[in-house]
């Protein structure tokens, strides 16, 4: 049972002017970047991480989570006005959002998106708050063998569900392990793969690597794809429509309450499974809603149920993807993996022990998440018209700006020029991996999990020695390895679900 003083302390920690300003700034930056076609939330998070080094832990976490939340809302703006999702998460929103905007109701469509998005996010946060502490207690009872088995399962699921093939996903994970083992061995201090370079003794900076692989490689793709003769994207005029066409009444929102609740449950469930993400949740919720509707033909013509299904589900993933991170120490997706680096920078290891050792921080983060939802609503309400102009910003200013931020962020994060070189090298690796169909998600998650996995692996080896029959005394681990084999078999021979999105394979 959580001590009341911890909760009151956490509330007091969050309710400082600095924290509230950073939450507001995070939400605003997230919405701005989400609304800008070509920039993604992950890119925003990767670039924002170095900026949080000077902040205290709670402020840094609140800021990054707010960027993540804001980005999910902002991504709907270009999806509705341009039929180009600002972020992969909003891809399903284009299906009904754009037709509604075409019918002269762009503001109404954006408001539907905003309200359902905030509902999904807020509900999912509440579920996270309710379930994470009990799950963490269960997780604390697991030994190294069970942890090893659990991480094997999680990585197999992630490798299998994202990217173009399971073999490539697992290969990417193996590469992630290998790159993470660069530097001094945590147990013995022996240098590994340092090639005589002093800077490599501390290992490869997760932040510089994230900026390179997630942000810079995507920017390089976009710059390479930019064509001189490409016509600028023209957004729909947001001044169109009557007053009625620009407002959403409470009754109109409640008309889709069952759609929104179902979408929230789908998004939360998908978010809690490592590897799946907002894009999958949005499309799955949309297709289920359409299949269950009495008039499926209305979908795709500007039906608010389509926006409710997509936006509620994709936003519900944001809170839920912290469930595996906080309870098991396994990031559910890339955004969660990036938030992990904020923990690591401040000397904290995400996982079930956080509830024991840093309960006030965890609950402070929860309250910051709840506050961020209301700020998201307010900023979205005020900023909607402004974001509508942002969507038409030319690529020639967006991408060079992103390159500058990536380089400067790496310099600041990794303590000098070596950070930029790591960023450039990993950007090239990321570009090649994307081009050749290797999953960057699997790579990054494996890179992050390597120290924990290696520790469990070595501990398991010490515990059982060469007597593998001892594993029979660990039925949970055997069950988890069994599930791993079933996952491999099932996903190799049954049609694979759609990936995390076209952007992050």
């Amino acid at each position, binding site marked *: 049972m959580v001590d009341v003083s911890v909760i009151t302390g956490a509330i007091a920690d969050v309710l400082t002017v600095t924290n509230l300003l950073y939450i507001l700034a995070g939400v605003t930056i997230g919405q701005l970047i989400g609304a800008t076609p070509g920039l993604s939330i992950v890119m925003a998070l990767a670039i924002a991480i170095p900026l949080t080094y000077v902040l205290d832990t709670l402020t840094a976490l609140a800021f990054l989570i707010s960027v993540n939340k804001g980005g999910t809302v902002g991504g709907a703006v270009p999806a509705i006005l341009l039929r180009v999702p600002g972020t992969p998460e909003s891809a399903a929103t284009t299906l009904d959002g754009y037709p509604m905007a075409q019918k002269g109701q762009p503001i109404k469509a954006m408001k539907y998106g905003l309200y359902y998005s905030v509902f999904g996010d807020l509900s999912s946060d509440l579920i996270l708050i309710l379930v994470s502490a009990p799950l963490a207690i269960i997780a604390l009872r697991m030994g190294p063998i069970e942890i090893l088995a659990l991480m094997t399962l999680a990585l197999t699921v992630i490798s299998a569900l994202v990217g*173009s093939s399971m073999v490539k996903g697992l290969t990417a994970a193996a590469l992630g392990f290998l790159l993470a083992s660069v530097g001094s061995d945590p147990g013995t201090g022996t240098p590994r793969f340092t090639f005589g370079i002093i800077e490599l003794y501390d290992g490869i900076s997760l932040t510089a690597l994230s900026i390179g692989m997630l942000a810079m490689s995507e920017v390089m793709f976009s710059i390479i794809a*930019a064509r001189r003769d490409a016509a600028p994207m023209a957004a729909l005029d947001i001044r169109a429509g009557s007053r009625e066409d620009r407002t959403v009444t409470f009754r109109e929102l409640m008309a889709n309450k069952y759609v929104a609740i179902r979408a929230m449950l789908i998004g939360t469930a998908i978010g809690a499974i490592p590897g799946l993400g907002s894009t999958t949740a949005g499309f799955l919720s949309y297709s289920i809603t359409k299949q269950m509707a009495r008039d499926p033909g209305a979908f795709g013509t500007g039906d608010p149920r389509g926006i409710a299904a997509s936006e509620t589900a994709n936003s519900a993933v944001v809170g839920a993807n912290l469930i595996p991170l906080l309870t098991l120490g396994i990031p559910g997706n890339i955004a969660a993996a990036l938030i992990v680096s904020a923990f690591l920078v401040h000397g904290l290891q995400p996982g079930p022990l956080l509830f024991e050792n840093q309960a006030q921080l965890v609950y402070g983060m929860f309250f910051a998440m709840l506050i961020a939802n209301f700020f998201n609503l307010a900023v979205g309400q005020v900023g909607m018209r402004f974001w509508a102009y942002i969507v038409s910003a030319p690529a020639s200013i967006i991408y060079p700006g992103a390159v500058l931020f990536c380089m400067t962020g790496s310099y600041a994060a990794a303590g000098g020029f070596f950070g930029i070189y790591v960023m450039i090298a990993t950007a090239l690796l990321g570009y090649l991996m994307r081009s050749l169909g290797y999953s960057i998600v699997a790579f990054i998650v494996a890179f992050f999990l390597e120290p924990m996995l290696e520790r469990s692996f070595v501990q398991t080896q010490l515990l059982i020695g060469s007597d593998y029959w001892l594993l029979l005394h660990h039925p949970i681990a055997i069950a988890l390895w069994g599930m791993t084999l079933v996952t491999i078999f099932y996903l190799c021979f049954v049609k694979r679900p759609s990936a995390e999105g076209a952007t992050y394979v």
Partner: protein
Amino acid sequence: MIRSDVILGGAVTIGGVALLLWVIPNQVAMRPGELRDPALFPTVCAWLLIGLGLAHFVSRDRAFSWPPLRDLGRLIIILGAMLVAVWAQRYVGYILSSVAMAALLVTMMGERRIHWLVLSILGLPIGVWALFEFIFQHQLP
């Protein structure tokens, strides 16, 4: 024509073998008296790569296309511009090197409108520099 899955599978397998036979023995040394082998986990990874490379070899997965040569050319220009900019930062400082890099990138993207050119080439580097120097209090070269 060699199948792409054969090339990728082969490359991963060869990479795993190279790790096992050359990189790990030369780059991960076990010190006398150590209870655990620091090369154990990298060795497992190398075997994993060999196994997965072979699996890819036979999987007939060709769900990608090789990037066109023109794209690779542009990639080299971008990487080159960044590397030169990093090198130049030590001598001419952040703003000048960033202005030159931004100018190259904007030109590459085909921007011809004066106001966007000015904003991208001058406004962005100065803006990012000011953000890090004054707001985040982080010294740039």
